[in-house]
């Protein structure tokens, strides 16, 4: 959008104000979660606040219905409510999908395990148990002794090589809010990349992982 030189600072302030509302935070948490190859830290506060706001809103809409408020207004409030609920649900759903995909890896790695919420941990435990049980029942017990682990190919393997791990090398498209200057990609052999504000870049996820965690970069 256009903004003249004098207006750009006002626009910046507006931007920074907007980005701190819960709705914006939820939106960007959702976006980051969708685009990232691994599961990100669960933003418990944000989810809690959003749930409270949704609940409040639902009660309000219920009362509107009773008090006979203009149906247009009611339907608009309902739309906003639906949009927020969609964001929250999709956020949680994406996380659950990632958990299902990488459940054994998440269980093994304490750092990733800590990124889950209490309920997600419960879900992950049950999910892991179910998958393990299913694999054992349908296949593993019928294999010779050496090959019966669901985590390793054979007893001779050094690592748990049957456990799929998220691909941290995956490239993501991202955008930074500010100028981040020369940024060194992971392997020391390349020249640093200049990251400007508001431009899209395609970078390997693991090079920008710390920036995503500190919210300086958004995934698109």
């Amino acid at each position, binding site marked *: 959008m*256009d903004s003249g030189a004098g207006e750009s600072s006002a626009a910046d302030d507006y931007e920074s104000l907007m980005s701190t509302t819960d709705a914006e935070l939820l939106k960007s948490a959702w976006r980051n979660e969708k*685009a990232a190859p691994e599961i990100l830290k669960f933003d418990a506060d944000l989810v809690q606040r959003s749930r409270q706001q949704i609940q409040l809103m639902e009660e309000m809409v219920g009362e509107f219905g009773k008090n006979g408020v203009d149906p247009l207004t009611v339907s*608009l409030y309902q739309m*906003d409510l639906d949009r*927020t609920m969609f964001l929250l649900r*999709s956020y949680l759903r994406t996380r659950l999908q990632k958990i299902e*995909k990488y459940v054994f890896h998440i269980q093994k790695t304490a750092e990733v395990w800590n990124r889950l919420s209490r309920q997600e941990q419960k879900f992950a435990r049950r999910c892991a148990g179910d998958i393990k049980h299913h694999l054992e029942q349908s296949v593993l017990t019928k294999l010779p002794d050496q090959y019966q682990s669901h985590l390793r190919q054979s007893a001779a393997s050094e690592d748990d090589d049957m456990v799929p*791990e998220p691909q941290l090398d995956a490239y993501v*498209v991202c955008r930074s809010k500010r100028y981040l200057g020369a940024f060194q990609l992971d392997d020391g052999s390349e020249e640093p990349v200049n990251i400007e504000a508001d431009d899209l870049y395609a970078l*390997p996820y693991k090079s920008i992982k710390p920036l995503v965690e500190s919210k300086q970069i958004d995934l698109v």
Partner: protein
Amino acid sequence: MAAASEPHASAFSAAELEFLAEDEMVEIVPNLRMDPLNFISGDFGPFRPQIATQVPLWLAVALKKRGKCTIRAPEWMSVDKLAQVLESERDSEKFQPLPFHYVEISRLLFDHAREDIPDIYMVRSLIEDIKDVRFHKIGTGLEIISKERTYALRLKNLSAMEANIVRPFITRALETFYKLSSSEMIQDSDHMPNRQAQATNRGPRRQLKDR
């Protein structure tokens, strides 16, 4: 190694992009009187007849559908501005600055606010042309990067829809380069470095020499 996990095909569906775009602000002229609305996503209003106000696109479309307002076309959507952008798109190799969600916004407005956009046929065909030129540029840009070993790409001024469409190709391609290059680097020095590892991008920041 087990399981090369499959990267998300297109991280966002078109509908989800539209959802994101619907939060962009547009100006409307209501024809009703309504008190301020205190949504979770923000506070809007109050609405008074004939007094323009800014609301998110989803709200504007909802009101428009019920015949409660007219939508004022955003200023980038005029025939002159778009013709200008089209000219510069054709002349330059770079992408012209356009609103991030221009595709989604224009689509929504065409579908729901036909009467509110002056010269809508002209505007529509201009936007289609701009889209085509940009896609063509993306295609040629991608051909270039395949010659060099690329570690990062800069996609200046690309819009949301375009980025989403090329995302699967770009991510797969770059990942493959990355894998190939790092395994080559592990192999020993029999291979003399007549290849240079460089971060490239599209844009005049660095000049690459054609081999």
